[in-house]
């Protein structure tokens, strides 16, 4: 049996390996983004910037539509998150509490939607949005975004509400609350962590989504950040824009991620997985 020191060493190396593997590309992009323009395209390349500079970031905002992309992304993401949170909180609660016919069907159906892969759905979706005249608009983005986010979030909220003990609501209703009042006063406050985690999940999804905006937006003033980044990567790639934009998008995602990571592991362990 390996003794304690060998074990610790193996553990240390393993953890180090994974941490390095996961973080290396991220660190590399950050490093690259603060190199002056000439150094980005220097050959042979340098690892550390000789003169770290924020000029790429400045150029990003002054020379491109990035600020517009950022605004679009934030608006759409925020609205998506809001709408998804509302729909899935109520929907998840009702799925968790009530028995009605077709409940299983809804769950299975929502999983099937994911099975089907966004690409398969994108063609009909494009036609719907186009026929509704909503191409290249905020609502045109919002609708599909929410439609895609709801299934998973609904599932998450349902599982979450199943872990909230029903006795509290029953007690409240015995005291004379209507169902809705019980929901509002007793369940909601308890559900706040779950709602927040769920919302952050939807937010990350909306921030990072690429295929949907690719199809729906047509003019570059409506691009979201992911599409904007892709637009600089044609036959010629504008690394001096791509790199800082990537860092910014990652930073936003990181902020959101740090916020919810506490709940992720705990929440998944609690109710989501049978066994």
């Amino acid at each position: 049996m390996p003794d304690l020191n060998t074990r610790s060493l193996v553990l240390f190396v393993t953890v180090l390996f994974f941490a390095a593997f996961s973080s290396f590309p991220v660190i590399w992009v950050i490093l690259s983004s603060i190199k002056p323009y000439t150094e980005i395209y220097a050959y042979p390349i340098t690892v550390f910037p000789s003169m770290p500079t924020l000029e790429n970031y400045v150029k990003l905002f002054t020379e491109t539509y990035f600020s517009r992309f950022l605004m679009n992304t934030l608006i759409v993401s925020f609205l998506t998150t809001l709408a998804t949170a509302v729909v899935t909180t109520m929907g998840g609660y009702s799925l968790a509490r009530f028995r009605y016919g077709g409940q299983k069907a809804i769950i299975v159906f929502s999983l099937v939607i994911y099975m089907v892969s966004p690409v398969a759905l994108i063609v009909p979706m494009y036609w719907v949005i186009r026929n509704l005249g909503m191409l290249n608009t905020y609502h045109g983005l919002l609708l599909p975004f929410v439609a895609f986010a709801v299934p998973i979030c609904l599932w998450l909220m349902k599982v979450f509400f199943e872990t909230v003990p029903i006795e509290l609501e029953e007690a409240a209703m015995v005291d004379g609350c209507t169902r809705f009042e019980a929901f509002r006063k007793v369940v909601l406050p308890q559900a706040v962590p779950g709602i927040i985690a769920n919302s952050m999940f939807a937010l990350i999804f909306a921030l990072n989504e690429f295929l949907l905006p690719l199809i729906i937006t047509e003019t570059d003033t409506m691009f979201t950040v992911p599409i904007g980044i892709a637009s600089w990567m044609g036959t010629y790639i504008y690394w001096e824009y791509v790199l800082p934009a990537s860092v910014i998008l990652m930073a936003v995602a990181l902020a959101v991620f740090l916020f919810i990571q506490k709940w992720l592991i705990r929440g998944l362990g609690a109710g989501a997985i049978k066994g």
Partner: protein
Amino acid sequence: MAFFIAPVVYSVWLSFHELRGFQITPQFVGFANYIEAVQSAEFIPSLYRSFIWTGGTLLFQVLLGVVSALALNESFKGRSVARVIVLFPYVVASVVTAATWRWMYDDLFGVINYVLQTFRITETPVRWLDSSHAMLSLILVGVWQHYPFVTLYVLARLQSIREDLYEAVKVDGANVFQRFRSITLPEIREVLLIVILLRTIFMFGKFDVIWIVTGGGPGTVTQTWPILIYLEGFEKLNFALGSTMSVLVVLLLLALAIPYIRSLKL
């Protein structure tokens, strides 16, 4: 009332997903589209590539995911930080992931070639994104981006395994490997099967990373099924054909997935 609104709204959203391509084409051509799709030179190869992509990424995602979960399950100082670092790739936007790896894979400016050449492992720059390497390079990206998903689920499950199970077996003198096989593996089996199912589904239909790193190329070397559908639908504007192919693949996936799910006895 509020409780009934939510599912109804949800159904309305869902109904947007139910349009089938051939309801939109003006002429009714019956099965002609289907025949054309199957006979087209690119459809079957693209499915084949999708299988390779899915299989390749899945294998390593699960391997890395399980190993990292095991490691992160142990208590050590800085564990929470390590967890955040390891899990981070999953929340990075696909575009950014793709751009980053594209940047690293570059022949001239890529850091991977730089390291290899500096340490004299190779003499000339390796063309990571050419026909012979592209798929492998892509698989690495897919693994990097998604292995934390496996890590997360497996880790969550590991955390809830009762300590006394291990204690009991340790008393009997089991070593590390035996403990893993007799306790850990059965406990995480369910999670693994679900994770494998989910990852297969998600990887099979992955579009954005492949599109940005290689665009399906060079040529059609990495043209998996989603890429093909996109090209058919949005660049050749052959929506009907694109939809047809989608339907075919959905049926294929369902045919594969349903027996698998049934066998899980959930």
